[in-house]
């Protein structure tokens, strides 16, 4: 039985083979990830770990910009921004701020969940970095500096949104006590300042080459200046809005004096200015052109901390494509965060006077002789914009924005037809993306890119020198150092081609605040400014827009000049609880030591 012998041999071999397999056989390694030990012994991997924390500093190029939560713009699709602009956000439903919301990633990146997730990453880094061996000690110090900066940035962000939050400096493991209560406003602020100072000490003055975009000493000083300016503001010295809230320390200072805080804010800004590294961007061109270029250039002299974007790097359908999100529907764009009338109206006349619809000269030609920045910030009826897409080139060969309607006499039918502009809500293309306000955003948008197909590569300026100067100006005004304030304020105005401000006292403060609104429009400052200045109750007013119509004149000729009517386009409302965002009900239910923000 020869074949049986073969079988026995096979059987024996099989038995030996299977019994030799055991634990080792089951030892498998993941092929798509790194083990913890591998990471913290490899300076390159550690650097990539720090790279990830940089995502905690969001850029503003999201479909739903922060401007649409405040009196700068209105999201044409709403996308529940009304919840925010009507003060309806509540612990049960955060809407666009909720991490489960289907869009609004800007807010999700800034909110509690993501903030603390990145705080943990910072804390892991701080716990592990001490043991890590680096061939390049400079790299190690630089990375430590970067993480201190990022931790300062994240806590400043959380502090501005929520007030005092749990101050977590450890990386938790399983089975620990997680019930951390909220630290006071002052404690969190102190930590932000401490972190910023540590960062400033370790970080280089400038980052070069492939490290551009990493935090620098300037970035650390700038976040410190911003944090101290916010902290000096009225909101954190006047908790009366909270109507007897029993934990005022969470939402404001309970001791100390505001003036010293203004001084600290001023000193912090000054410290950065004294570095002498930055200058206002001014290439000597026409001021409007110059201002437009400032936001579509890859690098400028006033960049302190920027976030670069690339066409090929797509984070999400609703991130990083501002031209598509905000361009007119007549360009197959989405309309997006359309400027509201109030913002457009706050751009002064070129002579420095206020624009006023009640002034018949202004009303007849609202877009003539305005602050040059007006032309760099908005698209409006008659504004020259880029070439139309192929299927609309016949209808508009020149690329002129059409947010108006023409009354045209139809001789054949003997009636008046209304012809809707290409960029209106009644237009032939994607009408649901048409503006209600009569404006579209121009700032940040690269006119050389066909946005329906391509993403632009314009960086987002998280911190630029002008903001620091304005912070300095604000602190000086509050300290009564008005001439110092005006020096820098007028420097900014001069760059914009605007005449100097001469007012004093309350008027000066008003001009300053308007200047900040105009200069920093859409740059994610206004949401916080209206709160810390406590002017929110008055600015959350119904959003206005303009209706543009080319009437039929006698003789059945359509007027070449439109008439403008100011209209209400969106109801808005304010409740004081909206000074701070609520902590989500789910989180309150997880951590009994948390105290909810007032009035929720």
């Amino acid at each position, binding site marked *: 039985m020869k074949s049986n012998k073969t079988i026995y041999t096979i059987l024996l071999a099989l038995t030996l083979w299977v019994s030799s397999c055991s634990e080792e056989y089951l030892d498998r390694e993941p092929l*798509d990830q790194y083990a913890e030990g591998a990471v913290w012994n490899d300076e390159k991997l550690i650097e990539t770990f720090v790279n990830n924390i940089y995502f905690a500093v969001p850029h503003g190029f999201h479909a739903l910009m922060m401007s649409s939560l405040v009196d700068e713009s209105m999201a044409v699709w*709403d996308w529940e921004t009304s919840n925010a602009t009507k003060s309806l956000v509540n*612990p*049960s439903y955060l809407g666009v701020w909720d991490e489960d919301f289907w869009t609004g990633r800007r807010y999700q990146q800034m909110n509690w969940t993501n903030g603390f997730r990145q705080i943990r990453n910072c804390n892991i880094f701080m716990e592990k970095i001490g043991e890590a061996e680096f061939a390049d000690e400079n790299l190690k110090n630089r990375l430590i500096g970067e993480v201190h900066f990022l931790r300062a940035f994240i806590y400043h962000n959380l502090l501005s949104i929520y007030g005092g939050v749990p101050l977590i400096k450890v990386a938790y493991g399983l089975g620990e006590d997680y019930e951390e209560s909220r630290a006071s406003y002052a404690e969190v602020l102190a930590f932000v300042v401490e972190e910023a100072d540590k960062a400033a000490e370790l970080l280089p003055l400038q980052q070069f080459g492939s490290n551009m975009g990493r935090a620098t000493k300037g970035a650390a000083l700038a976040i410190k200046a911003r944090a101290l300016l916010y902290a000096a503001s009225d909101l954190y010295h006047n908790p009366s809005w909270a109507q007897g809230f029993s934990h005022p320390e969470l939402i404001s200072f309970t001791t100390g004096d505001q003036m010293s805080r203004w001084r600290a804010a001023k000193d912090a800004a000054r410290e950065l200015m004294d570095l002498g590294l930055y200058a206002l961007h001014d290439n000597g061109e026409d001021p409007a052109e110059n201002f437009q270029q400032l936001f579509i250039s890859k690098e400028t002299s006033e960049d302190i901390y920027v976030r670069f974007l690339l066409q090929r790097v797509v984070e999400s359908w609703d991130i990083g494509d501002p031209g598509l999100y905000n361009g007119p529907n007549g360009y197959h764009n989405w309309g997006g965060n359309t400027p509201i009338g109030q913002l457009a109206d706050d751009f002064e006349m070129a002579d420095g006077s206020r624009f006023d619809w009640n002034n018949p000269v202004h009303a007849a030609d609202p877009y003539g002789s305005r602050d040059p920045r007006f032309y760099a910030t908005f698209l409006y009826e008659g504004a020259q914009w880029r070439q139309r897409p192929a299927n609309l080139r016949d209808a508009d060969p020149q690329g002129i924005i059409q947010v108006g309607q023409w009354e045209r006499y139809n001789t054949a039918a003997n009636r008046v037809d209304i012809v809707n502009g290409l960029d209106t809500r009644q237009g032939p293309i994607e009408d649901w993306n048409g503006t209600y306000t009569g404006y579209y955003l121009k700032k940040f948008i690269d006119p050389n890119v066909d946005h329906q197909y391509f993403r632009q590569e314009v960086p987002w300026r998280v911190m630029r020198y002008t903001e620091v100067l304005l912070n300095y100006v604000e602190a000086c005004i509050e300290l009564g150092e008005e001439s110092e304030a005006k020096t820098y304020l007028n420097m900014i105005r001069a760059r914009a081609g605007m005449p100097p401000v001469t007012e004093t006292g309350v008027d000066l403060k008003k001009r300053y605040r308007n200047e900040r609104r105009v200069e920093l429009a859409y740059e994610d400052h206004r949401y916080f400014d209206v709160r810390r200045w406590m002017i929110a109750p008055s600015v959350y007013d119904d959003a206005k827009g303009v209706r543009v119509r080319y009437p039929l004149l006698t003789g059945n000729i359509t007027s070449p000049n439109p008439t403008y009517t100011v209209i209400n386009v969106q109801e808005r409302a304010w409740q004081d609880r909206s000074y701070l965002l609520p902590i989500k009900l789910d989180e309150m239910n997880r951590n009994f030591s*948390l105290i909810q923000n007032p009035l929720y």
Partner: protein
Amino acid sequence: MKNLVPLVIQMTKLFTYVFLVQCLSMGLLFANDTGAQIKHREQVKINVKFHNIKVERAFSRIEKVSGFSFVCTDEELKRIETINFEGDNKGGYEVLQNISSQTKLEFRKVNNNSHVRVNGQPEFEAAVVEMLAEVAAFPLTGVVTDESGESLPGATVLVEGTTIGTVTDVDGKFSLEVEQGAVLVISFVGFETRKITVGSATTLSIRMIMDSRSLEEVVVVGYGEQRKVTYTGSVSSIGGDAIRTAPVTNVSNSLVGRLPGLSSVTRSGEPGNDDSIIRIRGTNTLGNNGALVVVDGIPGRSLARIDPNSVESITVLKDASAAIYGAQAANGVILVTTKRGKSGKAIIEINSNLGWNQPTVLPEMANAEQYLTMLNEIDTYRNRPLRFTDQEITNFREGTDPWLHPDTDWFGEVLRPWAPQSYHSITASGGNENINYFVMFGAKGQDGYYYNSATRYNQYDFRSNLDGKINDYIKIGFDVAGRQEVRNFPTRSAGNIFRMIMRGKPNMHAYWPDGSPGPDIEYGDNPSVITTDATGYDQTNLYNLQSTLRLNIDAPWVEGLSFNGNVGLDQTFTMQKRFETPWFLYSWDGNTLGPDGTPELVRGQRGFNDPRLTENMGADRQLLVNGMLNYNRIFHDDHAMRVMVGIESRTGYGNTLNAFRRFFVSTAVDQMFAGGNAERDNGGSAYQNARFNYFGRVNYEFQEKYLAEFVWRYDGSYIFPQGSRFGFFPGISVGWRVSEEDFWKSSMPNVDQFKIRASYGQTGNDRIDEWQYLASYGFGNIPYIFGVDQENQALRELRIPNPNVTWEVANQYNFGVELGFFNSRLTVEADVFYNYRSQILWWRNASIPVSTGLTLPRENIGEVSNRGYEFITTYNGNAGDLTYQISANAGYALNRVEFWDESPGAPQYQQTTGRPIPTNPFNPNQDLYYQSVGIFRDQEQIDATPHWPGARPGDIIFEDVNGDGVIDGNDRVRNERNNIPRFTGGLNMSAQWKGFDLSILFQGATGAVRYVSTESGEIGNYLKDFADNRWTPENSSADFPRTFNRTDEYWMNQRNTFWLNSTDYVRLKNLELGYNLPSFITSKLALQKFRIYISGFNLFTYAPDLRNFDPESDSASGQSYPLQRVINSGLTLTF
């Protein structure tokens, strides 16, 4: 191993070898077929004459003409004188008889020789008779039929007490050499075995009686088969024929309503993406609830895509009997057995089907007039100027100008009434005692619903199952199955397409009156275009090769001992190619007229600016090796013992590679090289896994009355950390066949079967995310950009480790009874079960504050119970020529979360513990609903009622559940129903009358819900139901709320019970009517059988609470490919 190329070469080699071996062996098998039989003596006609010749001479002459050989010694023959014989064409035995009578010689057959010796014994006569009786066999032919006279191919005909036998051919015919008085034993699965004593007749017609008791019916169980009648586990099974009656291209869609305890829902009918979600005994755990699918002993093979014509049976193990599969079996096991060849003539069957499919239900949408009116209402509610004048709306109602005022039915414009599908197959099977074969080729195709559909699914299969016998002790089996799945899709997903159709505005054109495609909704998406190949294509080719080598050795020296070994090597290659090209749409500004006075359309490029190509490749390999020792013995007639022990290892490895290029200068060549260099991209990854285990089974039966089974598995999995990788999983079951007891037989003669059985088992579940015990880090998908344009990897913590991670444990209790009445014409099988799953791996994220920032690992913290019942009852009847079968089955399962991580602050009515598993356990709060208690009629009612901030008349009223006067998150109540039905049932009826056969399946399910919330407003159209019944100031007593815009209203963005619908349904799932052409026609066509039939699937549905959508689909917004209704015609030819 990590390199793809050697792997491909290796596979190719293997495949070539396998294929050659198969071809060769099949050649041999055909060649052998006629020469295989050994002639019997009487068949040999001997034409000899001899006069007075020596007997040796006579023998040698006979040897020459007959092939007989005689062995004898000269000594014995010397004394014999000459002999004489005359005769033409005499049978061999006659010749020998004659010689014997002349010579007193005796012949004995030893092997193929006739031994000759002188018989000097007194018993001479008897010896001759004995010897002659041996050769007195005569040719007997017969036909075996069932009760209705239908021939039974494949029935076994055996001569009792011998190994002589045969199998009936396709006509039910057999022929056999038998002796008078022999007893034929005729048996066939499902029929009572008959014994017939052979008389003088040379032809027999044997009618078999259906054995509803199926005494010898076997069930396929883990690593073997068991006799149904003595099996103690809870299993259900169906044969391949039942599956084939459903005219669908996906086997997973044809199981529902047929197997008690198995529920399935089909979410989408998209060709190629239409797998059903299958649950055995409902939902048992928070994580993966998928059953383990084992095809021919190899886990991990596709159930959905197996060719139905190759399926012999499908069996479901529902209780502790699954424990032999250990760590993978906690959710039940589905065993698929493919067909194998049977000895006998080759049977060739051709099956051809042509069918047509269409959506079961399509939503009805508002018309243009309603839609525009509603848009105006949005403006009214927002205090904005109205966008349409009454005149404009009137124009749309009247539709006087088809260019300016369309009223588009988007579903009608995009979907054709019927889409074609087809399925063809050819099978051949047969064999002899040494080798059996089953081979099959199949081809399937199914088109999408769209006009000029770019969606199409094609599948090509082959299978070759070979069984060979090397000698009496060793058998080998070799199976190869190959499958190609071709999925063609447009470059836009079905979800996106149906989103666009749902959003399609009735006042926009799908096509202009001149036939040009109309403008897009956005992104260039006009559903009438993005459903075609105008936008490029997306094709996935999946190649799957399954090979199994089996070895079966019956130990010759120990009775009942055998060894079984299997090696299964499965390889899958996936190649996806996606070529996206720009397309063109036509728009009109509403004014411009061309020179001929007709509207001048502008052709515009939409979609992508430049062509772009993405290719993804993946390879997956699974190797399984196992070996089992079996020992079966019956001791002292009463004690039957079967023991099996086995060992198995399983490894998997796979990798992916992808590439991307854009900026193709032309669409003429769709290959990577032709793309631009800018923004090129590529990527890749890999995985590996390993499992290793020991298992066994012991069966004991006493007098076939008292039954017990013990199965176990000692399972090791790479999922767990070293030291805790192995787990032990036992299962025990016992049974008592009460009906075998004498007292029962005498007192309950009509109840011929009564078995009670019970089981308890513990199985594990390792189907969780890998590497939970490791602290690991991975790169995010998005690089961070420094240095203006430098992409940098971003590494993040994937999880914190849980070093204690271990098996989820499933405790399964089952109690069942099996009853048979009236000779088992009526049978009832019923089971109740209780499953308790503990140590479920789940996250503690409901209680751990988000402020920790933790990315939690799974911990063994969850506990879930699940209880329910199922039954099946079947009646077989006949009346005259009519035979029929009615079978009803049902299953019910209700689960409950016994423990898991609960948010400590949530009110009791929101907690999950003590309630069923949430729809989506990852997001349990999705099941929290505000309670809708009507519509606010007016402002006074709002003022008098706690309401959501900003509520206005026409809004939905939320109930103030906790009575605190405020509507907030604490007023949400947990809904206990989810999207998996709790109760499913089926009613199967079949009947045969003369040449006709009919089978009908009604199927229903209850206990599931579906949320309906369409994407409507400025973004898209409304359901007609909503438009007709909405609240307006004029119609303030409406059933529905006021016009909303997308999710802007609180009752659209807060889940509430207003939009929650029950999906209880009953449907005519399946119907088939067939006709066998009578034999006088088929015989002229040289066919054994010619059957034509028509069949249907999802023909009629009754779902009272859910209009507009199919009750099995679950997309709240209707943005998914609808389920299909199919009508089909087919024919089967058997040669």
